[in-house]
């Protein structure tokens, strides 16, 4: 027994020493971290994020890297949960010494990772999460986002819903950071524009059967059903709404990450007519977008999707590093501010100084035959809204339904 214990203790110490030996870093290599969901409800986003990063890094390395350093990507899986996301972020920053961290997918996990990047002063880009808190209450100087958050989506989409789809809206959202944020923003925007929110309901993440909520929706009798869900929840919800005949009964609108383009084909019929605001669609005839998609498709053999925004994030960061002539996080963060790029998939994109949100044009899309087709272009300045760092963007908000007589 004694000998075994000693042996195991020794082995453990040996393992610890082995793992503790710092990886000898090659001269002239800079690492960046790709943290995303590779498993679970959001893995579709994580995989495209990785591809976007990879494509940008290959382009940059072909031109000699950044500041003369070859870029190396280290990918980690966050299991779509805050705890592993934080652990992996710490690993990327403290062990691999990444100068840029891109991620993560789920808004809840992103906010947890923001605490890490703030503490360890690491440039943090996010291209998928759309909760509003990241550029308001949770904002810190190293954080940047080129994903239109819920406020931008509400600003761009609410007017179209009221003008063209109907004034009586039911908001059905997924009950965690992202869905709550979307629900709050849309309710505020719709009511401000004179619409009537006839009901709101939240269903937990990973709900299997949504039919218990359908009775309440039917009773409220809306014209428009606004859906704030993402990933596999959306797919299941649409399947069930369709089987209950509710996709034909109501007009449907939703958030940009409701369903990824590659999932649309299999659920084309229920999704017919669905309206959302988006910064990318492979079926947009816009020539910049087609050019980007053609390059993406040539490299990976599939159409790009919104998560490929990570591609722009890496280019922005590389440009900021060149501008700052340093990897120092404070100087790189400052170099980001106000920076613009003209050669993106949507033309000009600029990083707003105040809340580090990328301002870009977006399109309203409607699903026709399983394809997201553009119906209107929304200028970036119309949707972005004022910067509200440190403030609650919908102060005094309640879920209460105001009865109109």
């Amino acid at each position, binding site marked *: 027994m004694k000998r075994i214990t000693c042996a195991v203790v020794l082995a453990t110490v040996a393992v610890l020493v082995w793992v503790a030996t710092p990886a000898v870093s090659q001269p002239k290599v800079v690492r960046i971290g790709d943290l995303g969901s590779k498993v679970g409800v959001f893995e579709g986003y994580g995989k495209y994020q990785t591809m976007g990063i990879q494509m940008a890094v290959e382009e940059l390395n072909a031109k000699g890297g950044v500041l003369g350093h070859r870029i190396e990507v280290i990918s980690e899986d966050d299991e779509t949960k*805050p705890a592993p996301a934080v652990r992996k972020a710490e690993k990327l920053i403290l062990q691999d010494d990444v100068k840029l961290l891109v991620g993560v997918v789920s808004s*809840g996990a992103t906010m947890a990772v923001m605490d890490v990047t703030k503490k360890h002063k690491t440039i943090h880009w996010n291209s998928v999460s759309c909760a509003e808190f990241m550029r308001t209450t949770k904002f810190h100087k190293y954080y940047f986002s080129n994903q239109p958050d819920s406020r931008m989506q509400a600003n761009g989409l609410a007017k179209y819903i009221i003008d063209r789809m109907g004034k009586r809206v039911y908001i059905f959202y997924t009950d965690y950071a992202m869905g709550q944020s979307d629900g709050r923003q849309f309710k505020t925007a719709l009511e401000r524009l004179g619409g009537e929110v006839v009901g709101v309901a939240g269903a937990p993440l990973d709900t299997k059967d949504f039919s218990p909520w359908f009775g309440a929706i039917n009773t409220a009798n809306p014209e428009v059903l606004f859906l704030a869900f993402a990933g596999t929840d959306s797919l299941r919800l649409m399947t069930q709404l369709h089987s209950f005949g509710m996709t034909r009964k109501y007009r449907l609108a939703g958030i940009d990450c409701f369903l990824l383009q590659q999932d649309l084909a299999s659920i084309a019929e229920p999704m017919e007519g669905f309206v959302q605001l988006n910064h990318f669609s492979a079926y947009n005839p816009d020539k910049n977008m087609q050019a980007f998609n053609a390059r993406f498709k040539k490299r990976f053999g599939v159409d790009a999707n919104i998560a490929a925004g990570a591609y722009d994030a890496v280019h922005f960061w590389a440009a900021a590093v060149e501008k700052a002539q340093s990897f120092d996080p404070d100087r790189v963060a400052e170099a980001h501010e106000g920076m613009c790029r003209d050669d993106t998939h949507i033309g000009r994109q600029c990083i707003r100084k105040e809340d580090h949100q990328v301002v870009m044009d977006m399109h309203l899309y409607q699903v026709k035959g399983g394809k997201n087709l553009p119906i209107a272009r929304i200028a970036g300045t119309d949707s972005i809204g004022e910067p509200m760092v440190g403030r609650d963007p919908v102060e005094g908000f309640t879920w209460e339904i105001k009865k109109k007589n």
Partner: protein
Amino acid sequence: MAWRALAAFAALATLPALPGLPTYYLLLAFDALLFGAIAMSLDLLMGYTGLVSFGHAAFYGLGAYATAILLERGVLSVWACLGAALVVVGLYAAIVSYFATARRGIYFALLTLIFAEVVYTFFRYTQTFGGSDGIQGLPDALLWRGVAIDTPRRKYYLVLVYLAAAYAICRVVVTSHFGRVLVAIRENEDRARFLGYNVQRYKMAACMISALLTGTAGAIYPIRSAFATPDLMLWTESGEFIISVMIGGLGTLVGPILGGAFFTILRDKASSFVDWYFIVIGGVLVLIVLFMPAGLLGVRRLVGFRQWRHGA
């Protein structure tokens, strides 16, 4: 026995002094030791008393939430957090152990599982406590006025002190008369009853000690991670505690510590390279149950476990 434990803890205490050790490994070591400590507390139940709890994640998570709620509201003292966690976990554990220890074997496992699931569901769906996002962005806790537990090194020493204390408590428990009664219950519950022992009271006490130790570990976790989420109390987490105990060895205390640490490091290292490491972990668990039912370190003591099934 004691000098070896002291030597081991002294060795662990020098870890932060290793030259060139990236701070990340201190945090990984924190997780490993914390997981090990939880596995050790579970061993008190599984290995010594013969009760398998599938609900330890609830004790862990409740402790974590106790700390997180206090830190979020500006109560930064570590002692207040630990105290609150002990009270909350203690109350919950008293209820669970009262009902669960009334039943044996598989019923005990399932009852602890269901109770834990109630707690998980409550926190996941209660927006006051952050719903499924949990409570995030917590400030650093204070050891006492002006001394914050902010660096990885201080956090590491915090968990090391906890592990040492928990180990000492467990060691005292299992070598005491009380511990011998627990083993007697495991070996043959009816005989223990005929000998005049109030079996349920002993089981409840073992359950409470194990739960409080696990709850304390939970209370320490947000001090390192700055958040508490409902995932911490999901039943699969309880399953991972059990896996750690099985890897380490039933009824050895030291074994589960190593098992828990090994499991944590394996998961961290393997998940960077392969995404199918759960197949390996599951497979290893199956093989251990089939061929080394007392766990890897428990082999030499297998003799004492031949009767385990009757206690169950």
